[in-house]
């Protein structure tokens, strides 16, 4: 039987609440303990209610869900797309960390558009346009010294 995503999410919050309760009990003074404990308990109790509801729903609709194979493939396509997009975002963040905004931005803009199947010219123009946008707006206009990257000595 296929487990619904909402059950995973509710279970995640249940564990988070439990973790919060255990952690809160280690805080030394009641002033620092009372609110984290209260909030973690609320999350734990409400998430338990959600898990209960989801399990009941699962029991009722389990057989029907099992037969829907089209939905399963749609979910897996979406998860794969999310993985790719998240990979791009994480890769861009790492490139900024290493090389700074002024190198990472055009590289990312160019690489992403090429990956999406755009022509060389479009990708190059877009990459240059992004650089031409961020430098005058942020560095000159807003006087925000953008990160130069770990490799180039920024900390």
């Amino acid at each position: 039987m296929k487990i619904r995503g909402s059950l995973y999410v509710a279970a995640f919050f249940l564990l988070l609440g439990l973790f919060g309760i255990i952690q809160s009990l280690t805080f030394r003074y009641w002033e620092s303990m009372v609110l984290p404990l209260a909030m973690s308990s609320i999350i734990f109790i409400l998430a338990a209610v959600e898990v209960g509801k989801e399990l009941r729903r699962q029991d009722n609709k389990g057989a029907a869900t099992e037969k829907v194979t089209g939905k399963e493939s749609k979910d897996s396509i979406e998860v794969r797309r999310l993985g790719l997009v998240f990979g791009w975002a994480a890769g861009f963040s790492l490139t900024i960390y290493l090389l700074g905004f002024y190198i990472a931005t055009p590289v990312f803009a160019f690489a992403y558009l090429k990956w999406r199947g755009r022509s060389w010219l479009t990708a190059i123009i877009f990459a240059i346009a992004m650089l031409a946008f961020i430098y005058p707006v942020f560095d000159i206009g807003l006087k925000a010294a953008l990160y130069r990257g770990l490799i180039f000595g920024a900390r």
Partner: protein
Amino acid sequence: MLEAYASAVAILFQPINLLIMLLAVIVGLIVGIIPGISGITMVALLLPFVFRMPVDASLILLIALTAVVSTSGGITSILLNIPGEGPSVVTTLDGFPMTKKGEGGRAIGAAVTASMAGGIVPVFLALAMVPAIMPIIMAFGQPEMAILVLLGISLLAALTGGSVTRGLISGALGLLLSLVGYHSVTGVHRFSFGTAFLYDGIELIPLALGLFGVSELFHMAMSGETAIVQKSVARLSGVVEGMKDVWQHKWLWFRSTLIGYIIGIIPGIGAGVATWVCYGQAKQTSKHPEKFGTGVVEGVIAPEAADNAKEAGALLTTMALGIPGSPVMALFLAAFLMVGVTPGPRMMTEHLPLALTLLLGIALANIIGGIICLFAAPYMARLASVNLDFLFPGILIVALIGIYVATLSPMNFIVALAFGLLGLVMRRYGYSRPALLLGFILGSMFENYSLLSIKIYGPLFFIRPIPLTLLIIMILLLNYSYLKRALSGLRRRLTKA
């Protein structure tokens, strides 16, 4: 009081503020048209940059942008059957059939006039309400504020989540996240796991941008759409006729404006509710309800008036009580705090001219936005065809720059990406992102108010008239659906008996 009104006008009409407003209106109109970017995403993207600007200019920028997003959202609903913003979905019901009948210009004229006037009139209602609510606000002390914060989070949680339970989990999670780091009263480090990065807690900007900006990008990319197919937009005629239609249906427009304003005042309810309620009442009170959905102008006037009317009410609640009147106002709370203005009773006493400036700003932004839309609607509709391939890198670059500018730490990229994923999951499974953000923003405030109240009045500090009333209201609202079911069951049993 009159002095405050006069200085509000003076602040608003400073040339630099007018210029910022014009730019914000243009950006807001573009955002309203492009499907995939909402007003809330844009406010989140701009948050990191506003704290570098003067207080009044930064808040005028945000309010002008928010005020007109819904005006242009209606244009693509009418001409292309593509709602630029969520609440504009209602306008497609009659707006697009009008375009198909060759009455697109008339529909645009009616929609823009109804939105523009609907955005202006409630401002004066709100301005008139300010002196009336001041004595009530002044009566609020620590216990009242503690319970008020709780009420705000609970209301937003219950109304914006897929269910009350999920909404409340979101609100409580936001509160819990706000407690991460050093506790100033006791010196205890909470949930920081010995990491220096978490000693000062989680930063607001990466959290807000992650929840509302990055998660939208993930959602957009996951949907797999790469471009909105552009449909031909013919030259528009009949715009003036549409403007006259609003005058002919002035009572419908006024009712919708009033309903929108009242819905705006109620914490947590967004434009989605206002537009559907007003469309429903327009249909119910119409002499020809059967024609709704086939392209009648009343079906355009009612939702468009309500959509813009809610802003003034939502802003008033946000400023006066510190409780956001709509989900986008949760981000406004963050903006207020970032520029050093604490929303709530203190704002209405210490920053009254600024509060009035923002209310007047809504009216002025609506006038500017309305005029631009009336003249440029067909050209603006073409913006809906922008390719999403370019949006993803463009928005991600601005978001990450914003995070760095605000926090000066590239480590916060990880926080933004993590909250982007969390936001995506929450959006998908009906958990409330605005409630999480509100809980996060008000968490430390709530802790301070409640600890002070316990120390001054004891653990039963809420047994006082105002807090107790607020608590009862909260409990009733949270259990509304159960109570309604129980009451109808009781009524059925009594009828049988």
